[in-house]
């Protein structure tokens, strides 16, 4: 047992025991001071930050659909991942992009990276350096993956690449000509791509990918979006979007599914699962407090009636 494990254990016992004690003292008719609630919230948020706690997220069908698609594609399939977000959205959606990148590269797919956001390119480079550079040093650029970067024109870009990829992206970001990039062998347009993953939620983003590429080109599209826009994407599921990762929770579900299938990923960075730790624990504590409050309310009402 490491120090972290011990710290985690003690904190959890403290939180759990504390709640039990509160419940019992509540049954005896004591009111819960709100400062005690504050203390529990502080502990439930601070503990997972100090001693990372991850909960076994079970993937919901919408998220599992994306995972299964990447999983079921044969080795060497072409996957396009588009970073359609800016720095403001990044904390929520970049973990998704990273997780899907890891998964695709592990499965041996050839990945094409691009961005419809000018500010997305820097984030894309960041992800490539962190995920591909550090975790898959054996992979070669252009042979196993390619970064074509950002092109201005929003849905206009999509309108072109649905029929001709080279026209819009004659070279990759390093000015390597299209024809000498191995990833593009046999790829003329987006119709030859096996899966498109759009990560974003703004404009242009998932919706444009569906309307301009997915539907006309009959290419499967998967989506990763911020939590606030997720409800607006549901009407497209499952016909036009095969699956959706919504917010930090969606990303965490994907990460956990990844770990379930490839245990070695547990060693790697899983920011969404890490973010979910404080969230889940705090939600749990709040829910337990609501339950305690209601039980005590009914008990006290019964007592009053009894009198």
């Amino acid at each position: 047992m490491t120090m972290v494990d011990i710290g985690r254990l003690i904190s959890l016992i403290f939180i759990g025991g504390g709640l039990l004690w509160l419940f019992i003292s509540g049954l005896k008719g004591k009111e819960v001071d709100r400062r005690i609630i504050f203390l529990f919230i502080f502990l439930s948020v601070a503990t997972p930050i100090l001693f990372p706690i991850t909960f076994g997220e079970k993937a919901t069908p919408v998220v599992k659909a994306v995972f299964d698609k990447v999983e079921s594609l044969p080795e060497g399939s072409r996957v396009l991942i588009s970073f359609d977000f800016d720095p403001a959205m990044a904390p929520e959606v970049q973990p998704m992009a990273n997780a899907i990148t890891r998964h695709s590269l592990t499965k041996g797919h050839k990945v094409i990276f691009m961005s419809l956001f000018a500010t997305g390119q820097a984030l894309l480079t960041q992800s490539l350096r962190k995920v591909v550079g550090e975790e898959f040093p054996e992979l070669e650029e252009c042979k196993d993956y390619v970064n074509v970067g950002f092109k201005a024109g929003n849905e206009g870009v999509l309108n072109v690449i649905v029929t001709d990829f080279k026209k819009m992206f004659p070279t990759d970001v390093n000015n390597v000509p299209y024809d000498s990039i191995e990833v593009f062998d046999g790829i003329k347009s987006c119709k030859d791509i096996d899966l498109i993953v759009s990560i974003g939620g703004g404009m242009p983003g998932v919706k444009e990918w569906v309307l301009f590429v997915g539907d006309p080109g009959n290419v499967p599209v998967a989506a990763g979006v911020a939590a606030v826009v997720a409800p607006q994407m549901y009407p497209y599921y499952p016909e036009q979007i095969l699956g959706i990762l919504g917010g930090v929770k969606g990303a965490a579900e994907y990460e956990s599914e990844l770990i379930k299938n490839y245990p070695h990923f547990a060693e790697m960075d899983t920011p969404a699962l890490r973010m979910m730790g404080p969230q889940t624990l705090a939600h749990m504590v709040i829910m337990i407090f609501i339950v305690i409050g209601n039980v005590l309310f009914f008990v006290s009402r019964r007592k009053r009636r009894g009198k």
Partner: protein
Amino acid sequence: MHVGKSTSLYLPQLFFLFLFICNFLLLSLVYAQTDDPLLNSEDSSVAIPDSELVVVAPVTSLIAEDYKYDDGKQINLSWVPSIDDQLVGSKVLGYRLFRIIDDGKPELLAKLRCGANSYSDGKLKSESVYSYYLEAFSKNFIATSTRTVPISPEREWINFDRKYLFLLAFIIGGAVIFFIESARRGKKLFVRKIAGLEAVDEAIGRATEMGRPILFIPGILDMNDVQTLAGITILGRVSQQIANYDTKIRMPVSRSLVMTAARETIKAAYQTAGRPDQYSDDMVNYVTDEQFGYVAAVDGIMVREKPATVFLMGAFFAESLILAETGNSVGAIQIAGTARPAQLPFFIAACDFTLIGEELFAASAYLSGEPKQLGSLKGQDVGKGIAMAAILIGVLAETIGTAWNVEFMNDVVRWLTILFTTQ
């Protein structure tokens, strides 16, 4: 399937077909023309000898129209794209739009994508004359369209695009004024009880008994927000009661203008109550414009002065719950009201009474108890009646129209949508 009536709907399609055929004929003419070697050699930048020339047709039917209902600032352009502009394997790579002002030199106005067929040119001057043309370009060829007839944007005096908005404003505004008038003439009106406002008297009385102050928070926005205005009108009524009871009111505000307005309001209330000498400017204090700085200060006031009653009336953001929870913790009776749907749940959870949206704006009328003010509430109900009727008809028509494809019902929906769409 279609009933006789709907044949008229074919007309636009026929007209479009006619246009299309005309264009096609025209295009083939132009196409033949661009094959002329003379024309090609004229523009040396176009002819690239080492590769095959990709000849494209220009756009056709380029029309420039004054945007009708504006201040003479906008011209709308529309055209039929080049026939070589296609979704698959397009020869045309895009368009360049040029503008000529008052017979000056052509200037590049915009580069447009394939498939574009319209453009709005704004920020123009009605004194100038404008003319436009478009270039469709392939990788080594440029096809220029004909120039539009020079026009100048015209200034219109009435925006008829907004006639339905005017109609609705007229009906609802008219209903409000009508009921104000009829109440003024002495017609009795029923107004239901609003729990939060029924409690105002009691809440002020409580503060008087306990000898503790009343805290009034008018939200964190300035006087240019309509919710702050509602908060100030409520303050007018509440401070009259406070003046009558001779209770202490404390009002920290986060905007200087709100401070000025609130002082005038409270001062007036004390004058009406016949106690102008009891009023002092210290009742209202400016704190800071910073959202959470203000919240920190108000929280401090709450725990130190322990007000018996707290009013939260106006525009609130994230601070709503911080204020309401602190107020609750010091045992104050809290009456809140806001028109921000996102913050209402927090007031519902932490306050004793909450005015929901519309009730906030109705509050000062309700509290005044004057018939003419109450009349305006009846006028609002007419608006609700219109909304309910429109929604009922709209939903029924949409349901029947889509489920059984009844053309008349679809027309009803279309008409309603036009009526309830704002420009």
